[in-house]
């Protein structure tokens, strides 16, 4: 904001000063009216379908939904959320899923990118494409085919395990294997986004650093560990945040492959929110659950941020 030209100063009254500032602000806004017109259509949509719903979600979370009228219930929905056994189970399942899949896929992305990076142009773009292709395919399709892959009698998964003499399992229909089946599937879907981002970041590390380290007698693993990995830290941080958010929101696989079952063995937070809101029509409770999920994601993000940045300072 520009400060106003001081024309009304001699009156000395604060209200006059204020008025003149308002006036010049309006003049400034009028001068830039084209800019506002450019922004207007997007802003209307943005406010109507994002900003208002976000605010409304907080309001709903303090209400009990009725057919005619909603009633204020204070923090009851939040209390109910934490007293609800189904929520705690969903939370625990989601945590397990996240704590295994996120580190493994980041590590996998780093390893694969490291292997791809020194290759020639053609091999590079081939592998990049091969690892990224499953990412552009709808999760609905991936989940449908994986149901078939996990099929007890005709599935590929048991077929491959049979080479290692591992007995066939009904992976998705046993409560002690179902969540692991989802975790394994998520790990076997290649981390395409991560690989591409690591490759881009690796490409921007100056070659001279490696030359210098070579002269100092560092081996190739040492060079990787002491130059590449630390310099990739911002990418690692960004990717971890991204996959953290994604894996806290795991939903499509659950609804298409297990429906949260057997029992509640694969119930996850977003699937529970979906059920609470749109099957049981408990809108207040579903909103409270969604906000708790948001806060948990935020806390994890902050912890993660602190950890990685603390380390990079020393």
């Amino acid at each position, binding site marked *: 904001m520009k400060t106003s030209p001081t024309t009304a100063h001699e009156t000395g009254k604060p209200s006059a000063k204020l008025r003149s500032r308002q006036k010049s*602000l309006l003049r*400034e*806004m009028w001068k*830039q009216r*084209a*800019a506002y017109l*450019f*922004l207007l*259509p*997007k802003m209307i*949509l*943005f406010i109507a*379908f*994002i900003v*208002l*719903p*976000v605010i409304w*979600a907080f309001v*709903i979370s303090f209400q009990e939904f009725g057919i005619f009228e909603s009633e204020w219930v204070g923090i009851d929905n939040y209390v109910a959320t934490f007293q609800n056994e189904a929520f705690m189970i969903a939370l625990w399942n989601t945590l397990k899923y996240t704590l295994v899949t996120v580190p493994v896929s980041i590590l996998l992305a780093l390893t*694969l990118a490291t*292997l*791809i990076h020194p*290759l020639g142009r053609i091999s590079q*773009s081939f592998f*990049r*494409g*091969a*690892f*990224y292709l*499953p990412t552009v*395919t*709808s*999760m*609905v*399709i991936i989940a*449908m*085919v994986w*149901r*078939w892959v996990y099929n007890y*009698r*005709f*599935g590929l998964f048991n*077929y491959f395990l049979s080479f290692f003499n591992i007995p066939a399992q009904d992976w998705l229909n046993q409560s002690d294997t179902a969540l692991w089946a989802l975790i394994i599937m998520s790990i*076997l879907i*290649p981390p395409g*986004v991560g690989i*591409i981002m690591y490759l*881009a970041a690796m490409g921007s590390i100056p070659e001279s650093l490696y030359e210098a380290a070579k002269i100092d007698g560092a081996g190739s693993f040492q060079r990787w560990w002491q130059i590449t990995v630390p310099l990739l830290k911002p*990418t690692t941080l960004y990717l971890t945040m*991204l996959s953290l*958010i994604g894996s*806290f929101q795991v939903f*499509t696989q659950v609804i*298409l492959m297990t429906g949260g079952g057997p029992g509640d063995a694969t119930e996850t937070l*977003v699937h529970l929110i979906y059920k609470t*809101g*749109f099957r049981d029509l408990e809108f207040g409770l579903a*909103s409270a659950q969604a906000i708790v*999920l*948001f806060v948990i994601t935020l806390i994890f993000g902050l912890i993660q941020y602190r950890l990685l940045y603390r380390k990079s300072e020393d």
Partner: protein
Amino acid sequence: MNLQRTSGKFITYTILIIWAVISLLPLYWVFSTALQLSEYKDDTTGQVISYVEAEPPKLYPMGIPKYFEEWGKARDAASSGNAAAEAHHRERMDMIVTDTFSGFAALFNGTSIWKWFFNSAYIAVVVTVGILLLDTMAGYVLAKKQFPGRDFIFWLIIATMMIPGQITLVPLFKMVQTLGLMDTHWALILPDLSMVFGVFLMRQYMLSIPSDLLEAAKIDGASEWKTFWTVVVPLAKPALATLGIFTFMNVWNSFLWPIIVLNNADLYTLPVGLKTLQDQNLAIFKLLMSGAAVAAVPMIIVFIAFQRYFIRGLTVGGVKE
């Protein structure tokens, strides 16, 4: 030394190829199962075999070897002058072809997949075009104009980008209900058009456009609108391509919100249609995989055609102001 390097390279390629096979296998399996023989009548025993449900699984469509087998037999019969046997084997060849594509036939004749495909395509196109226009306009002024409230708006956009979409599910649902948009495509299009990632992306890109060019257009007496179309949009083409592809992909694949607001089977998008297909035909995997194949092919084509834009789009996240 040289031997060490060669063996290192060999190991690298082996690991990468094995992992690439593992990662592409499920996608391959969609197509392989969609084209697998499901009712093959054995010529000697007369037994009807489904290779879709074979133990161990068949790793490629069995129609291919069976077709050539019958072809060879037909040719042998023809050379030995046995016209009846030749006709028999020719007929079996046709049968194999029909069976191979029977999943797609059932899909196109027995379900509304064409409608779903069309719905998905037109919604994705409308949203993509809308997003490109609105987000370029917004991103341009946020990057290149000075006006009161600009920083606040940008801050608000960044802040909402961090909030997960699940939070707005219930309020959006109520809103759509109140507006009478339940079971319409507006319920999908309007929230999708409101997404602000594109504004952020376009703004970041526009920062790199030299302001001199805009000034020059102004001096030439071009209106804001004309400057936008003749200077800004052409310069933003690479970013437009990236944003367009990602928007198209996200809308094409979107699932959670559509299953909430769509109830009428004629209005389904492909992912929703596939889900109901699975709910109704849990056991008919050939049909399900045919549906999956139909949904997968457009994205695979888009990806192969525009691979470099995908890659550029992903690395934008790392760009700092």
